[in-house]
């Protein structure tokens, strides 16, 4: 009995530790005060107004969208193509390639940032959107590779062989069979790539100029220099976006699954 009770108490406390901080920050986005403390004197939308009208925040949101979109496109195309290439067991160094593709997840961001800054300066790409998109793509591509490789592994190769034997050229097999089956993996890879770009601070710190300040970068310096409830409002947007994107992924997966379900 005592064991069961302590198990329950431990679980509740641990869940509280994991989830409570994320919930505690949400109401503060709607405070009317200029300081980030409870109790909240009265409710107001002033910090969301601030977020969308103050020049620094508005530009940061736009920059995040530009850089996030560029990163998603580049990482998804490169990662999906490479995952398709990795399917072939005849390719030499397949394991080495796979490790190389996943390594950007492991290397500390600061180390990569130092090297990236040195290299991009040599190409004249510092303080440019292209430079930031390239840097974000390097760390986003492993997520695409993991997710697409997983989806491809679940495809029954006999389906593709069947299409081939019925006379479909490789391009058609890919377009009509492989790609539709792998689409959920490609989509979640793209979402993860966008999320990675949205949340990336360290590389941005090294390669972005003042004109490429992203939302995450702006949050970082705002926590550091002058913290205001605009942070809580930005965090609210982040969490809302996370939930929205998660729902989109779940819904699109179930729609895709339904479309593919055998007709009785």
């Amino acid at each position, binding site marked *: 009995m005592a064991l069961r009770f302590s*198990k329950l108490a*431990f*679980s509740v406390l*641990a*869940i509280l*530790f*994991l*989830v409570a*901080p*994320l919930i*505690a*920050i949400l109401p503060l986005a709607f405070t009317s005060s200029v300081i*980030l*403390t409870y109790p909240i004197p009265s409710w107001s939308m002033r910090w969301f107004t601030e977020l969308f009208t103050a020049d620094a925040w508005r530009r940061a949101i736009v920059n995040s969208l530009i850089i996030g979109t560029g990163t998603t496109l580049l990482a998804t*195309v*490169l*990662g999906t193509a*490479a995952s*398709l*290439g*990795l399917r*072939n067991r*005849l*390719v030499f160094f397949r394991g080495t*390639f796979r490790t*190389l*593709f996943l390594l950007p997840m*492991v*290397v*500390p*961001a*600061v*180390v*990569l*940032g*130092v*090297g*990236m800054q*040195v*290299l991009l300066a040599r190409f004249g790409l510092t303080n440019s959107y292209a430079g930031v998109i390239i*840097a974000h793509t*390097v760390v986003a*591509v492993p997520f695409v590779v993991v997710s697409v490789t997983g989806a491809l592994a679940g495809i029954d190769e006999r389906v593709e062989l069947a299409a081939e034997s019925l006379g479909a050229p*490789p391009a058609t097999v890919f377009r009509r069979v492989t790609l539709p089956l792998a689409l959920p993996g490609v989509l979640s890879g793209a979402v993860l790539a966008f999320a990675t770009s*949205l*949340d990336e*601070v*360290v590389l941005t710190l*090294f390669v972005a100029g003042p004109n490429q300040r992203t939302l*995450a970068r702006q*949050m*970082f310096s705002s*926590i*550091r220099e002058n913290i205001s409830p605009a*942070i*809580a409002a930005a*965090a609210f947007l*982040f*969490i809302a976006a*996370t939930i929205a994107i998660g729902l989109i992924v779940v819904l699109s997966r179930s729609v895709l699954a339904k479309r593919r379900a055998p007709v009785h």
Partner: protein
Amino acid sequence: MSARASRTGRSLFLLAPLLLFLAGFFVWPLFSMMSQAVSDTAVLRLLPQSAEVLAGWDRKSPPTPEMQTALIADLKAVEDTQALGDMVRRLNSARSGFRTLMSKTTSALSDEADPPADLVSIDKRWERPEFWLAIADALSPLTDRNLLAAVDLGRNADGEIEHLPADQSVNRVILVRTFWISALVTFACIAIGYPYAIIAASLSGWKRDVMLAAVLLPLWTSLLVRTAAWFILLQEQGLINDVLQMLGLTSGPVQLIFNRTGVVIAMTHVLLPFMVLPIYSVLITIPKNLMPAAASLGAHPLRAFLRVLLPLSLRGVAAGSLLVFISAIGYYITPALIGGPGDQMISSIIAFYAIGSANWGMAGALGVVLLAATLVLYSVYARLSADEPGRR
């Protein structure tokens, strides 16, 4: 061409773009960071003529007139004052006294009305071979100074490796601190994550779903949002202090932010999912009837745990610990925002050298140390997770 060869060709064609991209923007940056750590061209860049003449010097005899003429020509040709400052700083660190000697020399050389005949007439110190030796040594484009300095070592006048004086030995303190904070976070993650995973694996249905969702939700939330949340919770008028005072545990606010406590709490929260998930994935493969079997044979629950569950789940604990530790040693954002000056880890120091003081050599050298530690630990982790039985 056979079908097989054409398929392989197609696969390589698909792999090539990402391979080229990562070679150019991932491998190359890491190499240029490493080469920054060992490159040392501050002196060579400015003294090309002296480099040629000094190559033929026996390193012992007093300076020849040719050496002096070459150095005068090189110094007269310098226009970039910042590069000159870099060179003087570099030479002064090898031999103190160079700063005054060089400023005296350059101002004498710029005197158009009364040009000096040679360097010795400007300052007697130019007769001594030690100063020329310092220049000759600094002309080499490669150096191990930064790498040695990254672990608080240096070379003395005879070229032997020795410990730097205590007032210059800051990096070892930071390395030890980085490993210590990472170890504390790893222990905290084991202490919370291991029982959590055991409980989650023993449950079923919605209870298990709730426990897993509680781990996945923070994992999906932005790192910056989580750090901001802890910043708000831990501050002096934050919720945690409010609750502590309401419960009467403390009379005044407790300092929880800008110190070690805050950093460990926030990093444990951020990294806990990386501990729970590997342990959980090992635990669910263990047959559920083993613990009841041990109990039915008369084993005390603690003994059953120590002899059955612990050995079987140890691989998951090891994998989770390595994952947490590897992530922790490279952390930058959380210590930078939640920690005080005494909690900055190696990443912050690298960022300081790179962004704050543009000292690429030191940033690169410390980066090499961090990269090496990470890759060694990661290879252990990769071996550990590749050895999973039943996955071959």
